[in-house]
């Protein structure tokens, strides 16, 4: 078992997944896709829905980009990605509106804005155009899960402080006074800033070298 584990650590699959989730986490390390990470994270359920939507769009669009990578001329590749990505976003939008209208209403315009989420474009441009489909698939999943877990972490902190609940279960004592500011934009900025600080300190991954 131990041997198997060591062996797995040297495969490309494992490293792609690890990079996406931790070492090159799109939000914490690359600081991409922040708009939706802050705007929809005042409730945990919204964060989960957004995470899943982005997971689907990133994975599916990277797969398609990887599939057609040899036939797109370099000049028009951006607009080709845009068309591919927005087709998938429209699918997600229609699906959520049909089956989960409450969540679709809460996410509002941010659902459509997955099109311009830098993570989707970033993965298409940085990974999918250069790699075969099997690796692209893993890379898409790993990156979007890396995005999702940060989203959920931010949402748990914000919902607990702003409403005293997590997924509508009461976690704070009855005497808890809601911090309304946490449900507004500044709360998101502060919480994400502190999370980035924490993760960087833990991973010892800094932007400026210590003097």
């Amino acid at each position, binding site marked *: 078992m131990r041997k198997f584990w060591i062996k797995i650590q040297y495969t490309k699959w494992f490293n792609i997944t690890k990079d996406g989730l931790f070492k090159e986490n799109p939000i914490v390390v690359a*600081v*991409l*896709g*922040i*708009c939706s990470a*802050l*705007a929809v994270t005042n409730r945990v359920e919204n964060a989960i829905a957004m995470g899943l939507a982005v997971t689907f769009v990133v994975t599916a669009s990277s797969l398609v980009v990887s599939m057609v990578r040899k036939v797109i001329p370099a000049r028009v590749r*951006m*607009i080709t990605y*845009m*068309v591919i990505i*927005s*087709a998938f*976003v*429209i699918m997600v*939008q*229609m699906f959520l509106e049909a089956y989960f209208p409450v969540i679709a209403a809460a996410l*509002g*315009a941010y659902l*459509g*804005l997955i*099109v*311009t*989420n*830098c993570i989707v*474009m970033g993965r298409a441009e940085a990974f999918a155009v250069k790699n075969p489909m099997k690796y692209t698939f893993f890379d898409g999943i790993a990156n979007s899960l890396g995005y999702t877990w940060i989203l959920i972490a931010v949402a748990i902190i914000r919902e607990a402080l702003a409403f005293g609940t997590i997924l509508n279960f009461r976690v704070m004592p009855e005497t808890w006074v809601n911090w309304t*500011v946490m449900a*507004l*934009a*500044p*709360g*998101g*900025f*502060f919480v*994400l*800033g502190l999370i*980035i*600080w*924490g993760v*960087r*300190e833990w991973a010892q991954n*800094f*932007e*400026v070298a*210590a003097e």
Partner: protein
Amino acid sequence: MINLIEVFIESVLSRNIALIFILGMCPLIAISTNVKNAKGMGLAVIFVVFLTAVINYPIYLLLEATGTERLSILVFIITIATTVQFLEIFIEKVSPRMYNNFGLFLPLITVNCVVLAVSQFFVNRSYNFAETATFSLGAGIGWALAIILIAAIREKMENHSTVPRGLAGRGIVFIIMGILSLAFIGFTGLSFF
């Protein structure tokens, strides 16, 4: 007319697209390292946001008339990409000096969520044409205001403060934006009439 002024003030201050709606963060963080670049990017965004919203409005009416408003995102993004491309060529030909100042930022704007967001907001809020034009102008100016403010603060911080190393670089921008955002919430309920 009064309604239009209200839409404008609201979109610049109390409903600032960058600090209250949290849009366009990627370029906001990446380009706010100095005021000169921030000004270039801000100008480019004002211009493109206004232009694309004005172009997208009649297109949306057309989509609505044919019952295909589901495809609006796809159509909007193509309009935006095309407009930006045209603008780049046009500016390069007409005024090379202007191109050097903010031409570089134009391709980046296609993936700036502010542009698409403004086109989506006028749909969601069912604005008419005059309101759309005013709102898009205000949103662009609001975004430019935010990026210039942040860039100025970051420039000053370079020389005058020691930031904890885990926050240094892009981390501290979030704290700056949080405080600025608190300040902009203070504009809520502002009225001149």
